[in-house]
């Protein structure tokens, strides 16, 4: 295992070089994130479909438990239980607009992971960097448990556990645990844990800071130790359910699933579930005793328990919904944690938007009216009063809003309409609007995916590393 250890040290030092200006040291973090012996325990796997270009290339990498779809290259990297989901990558001939000009992609886009260590990280979408549309790069980067890298090329950066970087090109940044960044392009920036930042230059700037001490109850992370708190406890308690899904080669498909819905074979489906038409359930999603109405989706690392989603709901990567009732077209952002209790449920009215990285954890019944915008940390009615607003009122902001831990500047209308347009895009991409002929999306295209497995060296100096593997059509 010498080669793997040496690779880990090398990656950590490379990240440190990039973060020297911030004086951020990832070495003690990298060494204790995952015991290296875990790297030989799990196979890696990749999907083949007629709907997505295939090109996989793995060199001097460890890929334990990781999943690959589409076009991806890993080089001198360690990926642990990480999903590289390349089903939204752009292809040769696609065009994008920048500065009023339409530019055509000269080749199929590829996710390129180099000199990086990704732990239980989800990589999805396509590069939104106009300077690098054919190459969605992740280089010299360390990302921790349940981080999301969504359409965001990254170089020389650190992502704490449950951090999300969304549609942002990032250079030499350290993003704290449970921080959400959607800011276009940033460099040499350090975000404290629990920072929620959404910015569209010239339009709006939204910054919310989770209260530090209260956040520690949910996610606490210090170098040299594994992440801890409610989030980790919740996931650990359901870890065993995934073991069966990954160990068994041929799983019995649940009955009563409509032909136009898609349940990934690496999702956990526990009784009793209702799955309606055009539903999309991605890999590593966990469903139990819940109702998913037409066009609802549960993206990667989502957990939906004892809940009812009426339809056309977007439950973004890593969101958890427990003991809750959600109306139609409720959007729940990345890594949000919504927890009612069996005897005091959480109800969210139709058309509401739950900002990414929102925590709602209640011990009294709570009802959020329809068409509301919700953000931040909410554990009481008083918190809800501070951290929510009718969408129409938010859209009327033109200037500044200082409210609790939220700071907002710019056009509320641009913020709300931007969000709503994005939700419609997600529903369209996911196939929620499929009418039998038009608007095919992931729910229809991802139904028949063949999965192959690959394994590392079991012994010797290269133990845990995979040989060079090139997979092409």
């Amino acid at each position, binding site marked *: 295992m010498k080669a793997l250890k040496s690779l880990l040290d090398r990656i950590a030092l490379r990240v440190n070089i990039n973060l020297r200006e911030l004086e951020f040291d990832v070495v003690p973090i990298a060494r204790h994130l995952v015991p290296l012996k875990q790297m030989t325990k799990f196979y890696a796997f990749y999907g083949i479909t007629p709907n997505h270009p295939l090109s996989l290339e793995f060199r001097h990498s460890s890929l334990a438990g990781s999943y690959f779809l589409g076009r991806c290259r890993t080089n001198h990297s360690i990926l642990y239980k990480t999903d590289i989901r390349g089903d939204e990558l752009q292809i040769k001939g696609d065009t994008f607009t920048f500065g009023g000009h339409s530019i055509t992609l000269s080749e199929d886009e590829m996710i390129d992971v180099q000199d990086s260590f990704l732990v239980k990280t989800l990589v999805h979408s396509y590069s939104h960097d106009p300077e690098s549309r054919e190459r969605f790069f992740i280089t010299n980067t360390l990302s921790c448990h349940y981080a999301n890298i969504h359409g965001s090329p990254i170089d020389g950066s650190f992502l704490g556990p449950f951090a999300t970087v969304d549609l942002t090109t990032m250079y030499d940044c350290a993003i704290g645990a449970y921080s959400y960044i959607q800011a276009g392009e940033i460099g040499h*920036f350090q975000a*404290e844990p629990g920072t929620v*930042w959404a*910015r569209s230059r010239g339009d709006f*700037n939204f*910054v919310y800071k989770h209260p530090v001490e209260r956040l520690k109850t949910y996610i606490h992370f210090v170098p040299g130790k594994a992440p801890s708190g409610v989030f980790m406890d919740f996931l650990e308690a359901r870890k065993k359910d995934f073991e069966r899904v990954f160990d068994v080669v041929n799983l019995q498909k649940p009955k009563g699933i409509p032909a136009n819905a898609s349940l990934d074979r690496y999702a956990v489906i526990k009784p009793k579930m209702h799955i309606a038409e055009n539903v999309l359930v991605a890999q590593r999603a966990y469903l139990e005793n819940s109702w998913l109405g037409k066009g609802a989706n549960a993206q990667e690392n989502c957990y939906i328990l004892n809940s009812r989603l009426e339809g056309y709901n977007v439950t973004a990567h890593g969101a958890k919904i427990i003991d809750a009732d959600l109306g139609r077209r409720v959007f729940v952002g990345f890594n949000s944690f919504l927890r009612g209790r069996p005897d005091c449920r959480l109800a969210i009215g139709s058309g509401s938007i739950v900002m990414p990285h929102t925590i709602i954890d209640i011990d009294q019944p709570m009802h959020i009216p329809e068409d509301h915008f919700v953000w931040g940390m909410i554990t009481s009615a008083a918190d809800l009063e501070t951290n929510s607003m009718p969408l129409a009122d938010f859209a009327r902001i033109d200037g*500044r809003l*200082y409210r609790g831990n939220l700071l907002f*500047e710019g056009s509320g209308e641009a913020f709300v309409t931007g969000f709503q347009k994005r939700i419609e895009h997600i529903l369209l991409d996911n196939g929620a609007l499929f009418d039998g002929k038009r608007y095919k999306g992931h729910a229809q295209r991802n139904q028949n995916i063949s999965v192959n497995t690959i394994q590392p060296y079991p012994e010797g100096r290269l133990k845990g590393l995979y040989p060079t593997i090139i997979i092409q059509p």
Partner: protein
Amino acid sequence: MTDFKIREIMVPLSEYATVREGATLLEAVLALEKAQEEFEHYQYRHRAILVLNRAGRVVGKLSQLDVLRALEPEDASNAELKQLMRFGFSPEFIRGFRKRKRLDGVPLQNLCTKAAGLKVEAFMQTPSEGEYVEVDASLDMAIHQLVVGNHLSLLVTEGEAIVGILRLTDVFAAVFHLMKECQLT
């Protein structure tokens, strides 16, 4: 043409406001007042206090701005302000935020009472390499150091010892004098 020497235009250390390490900000301000009263024939007021260690060596300089800095509430909201700048909020937005925090904050009188008892070490600036000038150095060298380093004064050394303070205001007065001489010739 007058040939100004640093020794002639500097303020000797013995005439400058000084306090020992461990002194409070109030003691520093009183020392400044006292120095000013004793040398009130000066046209320009002293603007800083030197902090000396037990051996009498200068270890720090406390400017008026440093004293005012002690009144700034060094709490979470101040740190927040610094962060806001990094997030790219506009100056107007930051002013609004500062105003809100000020309105919610502690009255100035209370801040002054609290600041008076704070130790000078927490606010003094340790002189950098470019803040020392030899007593025999030329005036243009001193001007260069003041301009490049953006300093309000330089510590004048003679061998190992600090013997005086060369203030920007005195250098300016000398330069002004020279300019007038040039005009006349």
